[in-house]
């Protein structure tokens, strides 16, 4: 069973891809069938992933299975297509298929009656296929193809309600911001091909280790890093992720949990041999990650839109993972990615459930008291928030502890303190959200509060499953189970730190502290938030407006990009266009002139033939020695 699955692992990305084509070509008029085959294909993928995961865990040995065949072969360049299955891939396949499956089931309720229901499922399948293909790729080239497909699918889904201007803008923003990162990534890949002559991960690894030109290697690594910075929304390319909220909420869950943003972190893990080859690059990674973690957590504290809070939370947690990678703790980073996938999907789907019940109300100030009306949503949401806040024994605790441990034991005190601070802020903003939206008085506006009721089962069951995963997923990396996660997913050169009681207790305590602080401020109202805002109005405005990064970019685009564009436009119209028109006219005139040689007379045609032979013979005789060697 396990062997068979392993050999047919390509089915997992292929099935949703076929479903995408099927719906796009034939089935788009039958939404029910479209949704059904989409869900069946991803469910089959999930089943295969589970079999592989269990097989790997039972086998006890680190897995390494690679299939590869040439796609294009010529001297100096072989482009291959292939699949690489190891611990990292198996974990990612499981996460992606599980979250995508739950999101698709949940969408049955959330997207019910939408006119684009069938295309929604087509895009969902494409998104899943792209991400699954990405995690199973055995070389940079193929990875890049799927990487771009992920970008395309996210564009289609973020802009799914393209009737809304904000959705169109958000989709464009996500796509363009990602292009910036992808450009660097592609350059990096080209450099890798030029320097090492291969893009295969397995072949690259030893070559990179022996490579001595550090300066070039750092450049290449930083170029490659641009990819994850864009896709995983790290500072300074983070601006697209909060806006990506414009898509349907289940899509946000997918983007934030399993696909898209996970791709960047996954790339760092997959190509850890190259990222970790130079300490300089590692430092850059750690700083970017750490900064993003803190920066986004601060913004999250000030936001009111339920999805935006979660979005900034994702940014912050991704920063956490990237920071862990930068500190050399690849396993810890991937472990956090895994646990985060479950509770962040849970939180987003929970938020979706709230938004669905409140008829697209997203401002937490207009919610309140939902716990009585929507018990399942509320309590699963609380479990997700507790997991995110790192309260033991939930999933987030174990993975966050691993990251903090690696910072602490590795001697990076600065990053350790930063990590603790972010952990505190995380607990604080999550419970700010919970106390404001789910408890206390109802602040419902416009719609009758009495109407609010729990979402249908197809939406709540995914919540319950994810809540369960958020509780238990951490155990696979916990010390008391022997940390199987670390056994299967780790980098050869990585040092593993023994668990430290001090770190564990501190991280748990700081989470509790954050919750207590939020309780005091937002449930008991012991501190007036309005007064704090007033006192710190300068700082507050700065943070509330997301440090004006978007505005700075806009200004830059206006001044430099628009200015250059105007100049180029002038050159294009007045110089290039004229040249192009001229050449087109000449070409067209030639075509017309030559056409008249064709006069329909057989005699003429025969003359041309014989004339051609005579001219050729004469030319050879005249050129004589030139043509004869």
């Amino acid at each position: 069973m396990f062997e068979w699955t392993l050999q047919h692992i390509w089915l997992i990305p292929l099935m949703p891809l076929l479903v995408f084509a099927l719906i796009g070509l034939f089935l788009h008029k039958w939404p029910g069938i479209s949704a059904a085959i989409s869900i069946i294909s991803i469910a089959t993928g999930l089943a295969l992933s589970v079999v592989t995961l269990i097989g790997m865990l039972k086998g006890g040995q680190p897995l390494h299975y690679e299939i590869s065949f040439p796609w294009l072969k010529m001297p100096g360049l072989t482009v291959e297509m292939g699949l690489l299955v190891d611990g990292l891939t198996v974990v990612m396949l499981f996460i992606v298929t599980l979250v995508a499956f739950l999101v698709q089931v949940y969408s049955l309720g959330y997207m019910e009656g939408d006119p684009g229901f069938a295309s929604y499922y087509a895009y969902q399948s494409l998104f899943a296929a792209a991400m699954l293909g990405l995690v199973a790729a055995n070389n940079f080239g193929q990875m890049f193809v799927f990487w771009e497909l992920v970008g395309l699918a996210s564009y289609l889904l973020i802009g799914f309600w393209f009737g809304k201007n904000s959705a169109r803008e958000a989709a464009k923003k996500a796509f363009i911001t990602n292009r910036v990162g992808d450009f660097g990534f592609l350059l990096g890949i080209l450099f890798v091909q030029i320097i090492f002559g291969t893009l295969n991960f397995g072949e690259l690894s030893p070559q990179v280790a022996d490579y001595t030109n550090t300066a070039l290697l750092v450049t290449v690594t930083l170029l490659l890093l641009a990819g994850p910075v864009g896709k995983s929304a790290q500072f300074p390319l983070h601006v697209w992720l909060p806006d990506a909220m414009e898509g349907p909420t289940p899509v946000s869950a997918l983007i934030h949990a399993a696909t898209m943003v996970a791709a960047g972190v996954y790339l760092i893990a997959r190509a850890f041999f190259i990222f970790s080859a130079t300490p300089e690059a590692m430092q850059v990674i750690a700083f970017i990650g750490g900064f993003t973690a803190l920066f986004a957590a601060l913004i999250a504290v000030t936001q009111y839109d339920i999805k935006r809070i979660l979005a900034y939370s994702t940014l912050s947690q991704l920063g956490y993972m990237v920071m862990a990678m930068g500190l050399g703790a690849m396993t810890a980073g991937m472990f956090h990615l895994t646990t985060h996938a479950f509770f962040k999907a849970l939180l987003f789907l929970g938020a979706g459930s709230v938004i669905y019940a409140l008829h697209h109300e997203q401002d937490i100030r207009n919610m309140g008291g939902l716990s009585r009306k929507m018990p399942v949503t509320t309590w699963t949401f609380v479990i997700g928030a507790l997991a995110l806040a790192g309260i033991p024994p939930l999933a987030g605790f174990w993975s966050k502890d691993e990251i903090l441990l690696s910072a602490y034991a590795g001697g990076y005190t600065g990053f350790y303190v930063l990590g603790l601070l972010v952990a505190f802020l995380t607990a604080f903003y999550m419970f700010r959200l919970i106390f404001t939206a789910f408890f206390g008085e109802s602040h419902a506006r416009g719609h009758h509060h009495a109407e609010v009721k729990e979402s249908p089962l197809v939406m709540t069951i995914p919540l319950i499953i994810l809540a369960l995963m958020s509780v238990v997923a951490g155990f696979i990396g916990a010390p008391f189970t022997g940390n199987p996660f670390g056994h299967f997913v780790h980098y050869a050169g990585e040092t593993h730190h023994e668990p430290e009681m001090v770190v564990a207790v501190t991280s748990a305590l700081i989470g509790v502290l954050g919750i207590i602080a939020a309780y005091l401020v937002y449930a008991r109202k012991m501190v007036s938030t309005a007064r704090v805002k007033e006192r710190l109005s300068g700082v507050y405005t700065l943070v509330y407006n997301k440090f004006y990064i978007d505005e700075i970019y806009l200004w830059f685009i206006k001044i430099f990009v628009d200015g250059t564009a105007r100049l180029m436009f002038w050159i294009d119209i007045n110089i290039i266009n004229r040249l192009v028109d001229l050449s087109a006219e000449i070409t067209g005139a030639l075509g017309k002139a030559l056409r008249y040689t064709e006069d329909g007379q057989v005699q003429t045609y025969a003359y041309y033939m014989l004339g051609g032979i005579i001219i050729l013979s004469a030319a050879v005789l005249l050129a004589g020695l030139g043509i004869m060697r």
Partner: protein
Amino acid sequence: MLSLLLPEIITASLGVLVILLAVILPGKGEKTVQTLTVAGLVAVLFLAVKIGVDKEVLFNGIYIIDAYAGFFKILFLTGAILVILSSANYVKNFSGRISEFYGFMLFAVLGMMIMAGAGDLLTLYIALELMTISFYILVAYVLNRETSKEAGLKYLILGALSSGILLFGISLVYALTGTTVLSEIGSRLTLEPALISAVILILAGFGFKIALIPFHMWTPDIYEGAPINVTAFLAVASKAAGLAAMVRVFISSFQLGFFDWQLILALLAALTMIIGNLVALVQSNIKRLLAYSSIAQAGYLAVGLVAANEYGLKGILFYSMVYVFANLGAFAVAVQVENDTGSNEIKDFGELGKRSPFLAAVMTVCLLSLAGIPPLAGFVGKFYLFSGAVEAGYVWLAFIGLLMSMISVYYYLNVVKVMYIGKSPKETFPAIEPSARLALWICLLLTVFLGIYPYPLTLWTGNAVKLFLG
């Protein structure tokens, strides 16, 4: 030995049988004959695939069974099957004479198959005549249409002239060497003025078949006048057959240290690409457009023979194969449009994107493949051809090829433009018969698939040209 010749024998018997059936079952049995022809060709195709790649030289060297011949046989058979499938309804225009039509098509296929395997100039010539004479009849098949009769007559006159030229070249070679067996000619040749004439005459003879400039003049008139399914078959299979024979003759007999015919061919190829593409720009009839496009494509293919190295030759085979699917796909769409409107003007493709999205999609993909746009199959083929030319030192020729490919995008996209933005008085499109739908799907899928994953075909073509590379 006989079993190796089974594909040829079965095709010949099938041709005779079909003609006999036309007498036995006049009128009514036409559908049966059609089915029988397709089934027979499919069976021969399987046989040809199964015979494999062993090299066998038969009858003292005059007939060769090898991977190269096998490749082209499969190509001709595929082409013939696709043409018959895609024009199953169109043949109603030949009322009462449908069975004979299939008979002549089978004889043409037989001629092509023998051309690919000919190891001797005379065998080659006879096979070529078998094919060409069948085509004279097929081109003039719509007897109640003046243009068809005119085209048939023109093709007969010019074809006879070109045969004469080719035969003259062959006789000179025989006079110089005392043999017509290809493998023996090379070692017996010495530098003489008569040899140069012989090479130029043979080049002109083949140049006529594959429509190299200035031997191309017949192409637009005959393509326009002939019934459209004959045009499709002529453009694809007859051209490939001429090319198959030409490559074998020039590579196995005229690889001479003292005479650089590649340079002459390079000049002709360059001219062909330039003029073919430029004149295509101003065409308003889809058959004439595809005629000039096919002239231009002959230029690209000749580039591969100029290069005469692994990439060039592989490119010829690769490109010929993908050209079958792209060109027949485009023609199959044109057949459907002609069924609907009775005309071949490009403006009649107006609003096809709305009236029949499937046909418009097939046409678009096929035309883009002909233009060489990645990731479609035509791109890979051109890539090999031009890489071969660059490797052989003909950078200028590759450059002209690229430049002209760029220009060609204009006239191909022009058709696409008409299909999606053009206007049409009609709202709907008649149903497409299942067999044509099948052919269209095959063309579409293979054009896309061989572009995305060309490796199997490159492997196959690599094996087929191995014997020419010593």
